[in-house]
């Protein structure tokens, strides 16, 4: 795979897994007369299923793509599907997918003018977004300023409060010392949570039940925060017992138009990692959806956010909702929103980055039916140990209402170096009950040989009485281990 050949013969790169593609010239040449290029080339700064997802969106928009890959990803599907590809480093992410200078250099040598960061890796790196901004490269996402603002949980909470979005009672500032922590704890009460200002996604949290343990927990939290995020700032927040995790998808263009696309229920988690998501949520009614949606839109407008994004909330048993954090990128679970709204979020994101106006008003958004996503991980379903290796057999389910987003193919080797997510199985049906049945059917059809996956766990959940009844919260999965 010579870079020069790729750069010359862009249209010939669309070759399939394992064998050469047989069709004639690609669509670009045909549509060239009428094509309006939003970008010259988009560099997809990611791997796996999200890289494939982005390349598919670009292909449908007639935008040309360049994939990046580490040495172990040479045979990956995103490399095969993109119009061009460039090796950016060795397997270790810090030297390839997380290497900002390597990526920027790749953008320059392939003559790209935009970067799509996907999720994970550099998607929420304000530094990366900033380098892009300073290099005249369009970062397909919000501004570095907003990423940085929402990346700090203390600043984010303050913005939410300013925008009139409910938050859980909290210290309202970073805590300097143990004494301050004890003072604050008197107002907030126990149990409480100590969180890292630079944490997020459940990382860097300490649950404290009594004042006796507050001191040591405070010091430990600071030490861990410094180690993990290079920032010792922590704050205190009231603990919300067995909450649901519900998030609102927002879409904002660069002309001040902001809409929300309803909620996603993400309470089925293992160690703060979402495993199963659905939309709509079984607890959110039209009124609550309106309130949460409007709150999310207020925050987005207040901070001047553009691109697609997600405002995460905790919902307690009395249907009170509290701002938790904002994810300034496309989410893993975006397909379920696409299924119920019929809107292609990745295409929207690219169009917004090109300066286009939203084509929809809030009143045009209609949620139809019910969608569920199961994250298929390469892991032992009992021990949750990662299970990389070669895929020797593959049957991907199909038929009505089934969507599979994956980068695997028969013969592909799942590398040990990256996230264990290998496929997203998404279904859509008229009702939640129908969607659960459809998911069960699709999971039972799915065959991945050569590695272990968590498909059996998903089947168990789909047959669980509480899940079927919608009785779920973030502790739901604990009884499955």
């Amino acid at each position, binding site marked *: 795979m010579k*870079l020069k050949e790729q750069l010359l013969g862009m249209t010939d790169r669309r070759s399939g897994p394992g064998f050469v593609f047989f069709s004639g010239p690609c669509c670009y040449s045909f549509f060239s007369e009428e094509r309006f290029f939003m970008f010259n080339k988009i560099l997809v700064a990611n791997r796996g299923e999200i890289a494939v997802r982005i390349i598919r969106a670009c292909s449908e928009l007639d935008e040309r793509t360049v994939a990046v890959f580490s040495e172990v990803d040479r045979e990956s599907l995103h490399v095969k599907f993109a119009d061009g590809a*460039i090796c950016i*480093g060795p397997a270790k992410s810090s030297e390839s997918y997380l290497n900002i200078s*390597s990526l*920027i*250099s790749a953008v*320059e*040598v*392939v003559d790209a003018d935009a970067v799509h960061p996907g999720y994970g890796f550099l998607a929420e790196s304000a530094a990366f977004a900033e380098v892009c901004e300073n290099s005249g490269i369009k970062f397909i996402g919000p501004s570095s300023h907003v990423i940085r603002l929402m990346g700090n949980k203390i600043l984010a909470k303050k913005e939410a409060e300013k925008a009139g979005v409910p938050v859980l009672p909290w210290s309202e500032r970073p805590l300097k010392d143990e004494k301050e922590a004890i003072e604050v704890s008197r107002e907030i009460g126990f149990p409480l949570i100590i969180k890292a200002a630079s944490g997020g996604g459940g990382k860097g949290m300490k649950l404290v039940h009594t004042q006796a343990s507050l001191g040591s927990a405070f010091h430990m939290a600071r030490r861990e925060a410094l180690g993990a995020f290079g920032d010792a700032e922590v704050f205190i927040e009231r603990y919300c017992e067995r909450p649901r995790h519900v998030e609102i998808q927002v879409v904002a263009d660069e002309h001040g138009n902001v809409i929300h696309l309803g909620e996603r229920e993400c309470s089925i988690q293992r160690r703060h990692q979402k495993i199963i998501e659905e939309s709509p949520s079984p607890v959110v009614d039209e009124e609550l959806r309106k309130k949460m949606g409007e709150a999310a839109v207020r925050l987005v407008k207040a901070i001047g956010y553009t691109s697609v994004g997600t405002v995460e909330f905790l919902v307690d048993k009395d249907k009170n909702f509290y701002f938790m954090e904002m994810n300034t990128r496309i989410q893993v679970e975006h397909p379920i929103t696409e299924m119920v709204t019929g809107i292609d979020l990745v295409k929207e994101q690219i169009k917004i980055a090109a300066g286009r106006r939203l084509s929809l008003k809030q009143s045009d958004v209609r949620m139809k039916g019910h969608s569920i996503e199961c994250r298929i991980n390469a892991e032992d379903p009992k021990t949750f140990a990662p299970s990389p290796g070669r895929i020797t057999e593959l049957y991907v389910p199909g038929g009505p209402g089934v969507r599979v987003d994956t980068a695997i193919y028969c*013969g592909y080797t799942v590398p040990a170096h990256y996230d264990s997510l290998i496929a997203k199985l998404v279904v859509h049906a008229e009702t939640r009950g129908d969607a659960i049945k459809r998911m069960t059917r699709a999971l039972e059809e799915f065959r991945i040989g050569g590695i272990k996956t968590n498909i059996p766990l998903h089947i168990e959940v789909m047959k669980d009485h509480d899940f079927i009844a919608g009785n779920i919260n973030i502790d739901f999965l604990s009884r499955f281990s």
Partner: protein
Amino acid sequence: MDLKDIKALYRFLKSTDIVELEVEDSRGRVRVKRAEAVSEEAVRIVTPAAPVEEKKEREEAKEEKSNIKTITSPMVGTFYRAPSPDAPPFVELGSKVKSGQVVCIIEAMKIMNEVESEFTGKVVAVLVENGQPVEYGEPLFNVEVE
């Protein structure tokens, strides 16, 4: 496979002139080497799949045996053979190079990164044109080591 199986397999092998056997499953890989000729040629049955890696291994093996070494690009960037447009190239075809000697520049993000040879020997091939983009790991020069 237990000892019994191994014994049975051995009984069979003993009745043959097979000196090396490799089986892998399922439906993949069989390798048999017979004593036969004194020439070291092996009966090599290559079942499909796993092309890239194997090829790479073989290439590496070949490289190891030969005294031709390859200098590869340590980063993505633009390849320059000289420190400036009018300066002569760092190395020419046939030049002697020493380990640690600068052989080219890779420009990445406006920074000129000098690439040093890891080998001492003679440049026998220049693999990339001046001013061309290169990816990580792309071969730049072949060097014949003494």
